């Protein structure tokens, strides 16, 4: 492996990891804050991709980066409202319900866009490569890393420095007490769900020029990022980023060195990590 190939693989792994992070950060936020496993996340991600095909063709790629996540989040608002009667009941019910929602969303995508797999053509300056230290990198990978990195930083800031983030952390440990501070817990849930879904939608936008997706992948794509969630820790929002990068790199280098085992690598890593610490290898082991 030449040095330049190594770095190209590295960047490809990091950019894939960062885009997966966008999907998993929302899942993690929704699990932590709302105690709800949202199997629909993948479908919202794919919806983001398909909306981008249509919207970017009309108003361009950059406006879609903002408009599509907002549209996806708005849809999330209504879906969250619809799932509310199941809140506070067995977590399994809501898990299955979100799975049903994901199924419906995928079929709705088929209704509007059909089965054909598309690929968005990029604005010209995001095409092609850029030379850094004499090594050629695809510009779009760098772009994905920058955008996702900004979102990751904003997400960290929100959780750790804002009142919304404090409320999110508070609600994890004591939901009734949050209501007793005069906070409308249902309203807070709506906001958290919309943020979580919106970031997934942004991931979908970034994905649109990269891989052609079939509508039905809304169901499987969540399975693909599941290892990230388990490695980072189901309820550890800070674990998402390192876990996403780890899995991205394992995928990228696995494809080069162990192509015959490529498909099982992330899952195997997940199983090993869950034996090491089921709450996530980036979670402190002693009580919280």
């Amino acid at each position, binding site marked *: 492996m030449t040095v330049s190939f190594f770095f190209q693989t590295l960047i490809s792994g990091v950019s894939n990891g960062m885009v997966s992070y966008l999907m998993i950060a929302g899942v993690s936020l929704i699990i932590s804050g709302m105690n709800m496993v949202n199997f629909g996340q993948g479908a919202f991600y794919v919806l983001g991709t398909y909306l981008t095909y249509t919207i970017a063709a009309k108003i361009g790629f950059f406006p879609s980066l903002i408009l599509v996540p907002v549209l996806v989040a708005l849809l999330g608002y209504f879906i969250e409202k619809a799932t509310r009667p199941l809140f506070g009941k067995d977590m399994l019910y809501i898990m299955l319900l979100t799975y049903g929602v994901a199924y419906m969303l995928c079929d709705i995508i088929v209704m509007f866009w059909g089965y054909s797999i598309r690929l968005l053509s990029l604005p010209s300056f995001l095409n092609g490569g850029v030379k850094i230290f004499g090594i050629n990198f695809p510009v779009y990978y760098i772009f994905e890393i920058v955008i996702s990195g900004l979102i990751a930083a904003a997400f960290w800031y929100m959780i750790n420095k804002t009142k919304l983030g404090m409320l999110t*952390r*508070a609600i994890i440990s004591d939901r009734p*007490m949050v209501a*007793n501070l005069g*906070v409308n817990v249902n309203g807070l849930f709506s906001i958290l769900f919309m943020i979580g879904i919106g970031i997934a939608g942004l991931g979908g936008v970034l994905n649109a020029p990269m891989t052609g997706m079939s509508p039905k992948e809304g169901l499987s794509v969540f399975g693909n990022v599941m290892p990230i969630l388990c490695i980072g820790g189901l309820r550890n929002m800070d674990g998402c980023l390192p876990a996403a990068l780890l899995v991205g790199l394992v995928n990228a280098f696995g494809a080069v060195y162990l192509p015959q085992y490529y498909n099982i690598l992330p899952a195997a890593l997940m199983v090993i990590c869950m034996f090491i610490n089921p709450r996530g290898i980036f979670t402190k082991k002693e009580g919280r």
Partner: protein
Amino acid sequence: MILELKDVHGYYDKSHILNGVDLAVEQGTSVCLLGRNGVGKSTTMKTIMGMLNPKEHCKTEGSIRFEGKELTGMASHAIVRLGIAYVPQGRHIFPTLTTEENLRVAARVGVDGSSKWNLESVYEFFPRLKERRDSKGDKLSGGEKQMLAVARGLMQNPKMMLLDEITEGLAPIIVDQLAVMVQNLLEEGVTILIAEQNVKFAMKVSSDCYILERGKTVHHQATSQLTAETRKKYLGL
């Protein structure tokens, strides 16, 4: 009367826990709910705060009025926004938030637009909390947690505070400090309803007391006139 309960009944699942609670609190005073363990003091507090939510198989009957407004059927957060701060039994400090975050998360402008209580004034009132501002909630001592729970209530700039068993599990010296604190709060114009097991503490900080027995108000008297006989009869002391 700022707060008035008339014939309040409360049900949790199939058990009938409150059986006719009557009480009235006058603006600017401190009133105490006394009674043996399990007579419904905490449930009365929770009922006022709208926590016996019908969705969770609970039910409230009777009338609870705050400044003339009926509270039964209202959501907890809406009741808080009328200007009632609740300091629950067991303190319920958020363990993963720092002291300062526990305060900031509760900050709210009062119904009258006042923000007299803010980080600065609360730290002045509780200097110890300022020293512990960066410690996580679960690293605080019992006394510190209790101060923080009260301080968190103050951050809401309430008209009235409900203090549920704030002396529970605390050393006598801390209990004395809390008594001074409650007296200071009264001087600041906050109306207070206290549920207590500690009668000595209650007598120090409240002007009026109501005694509950099996979820029903059975006695009402000025705290200063609470005779040894009455205490023995209802409280076993």
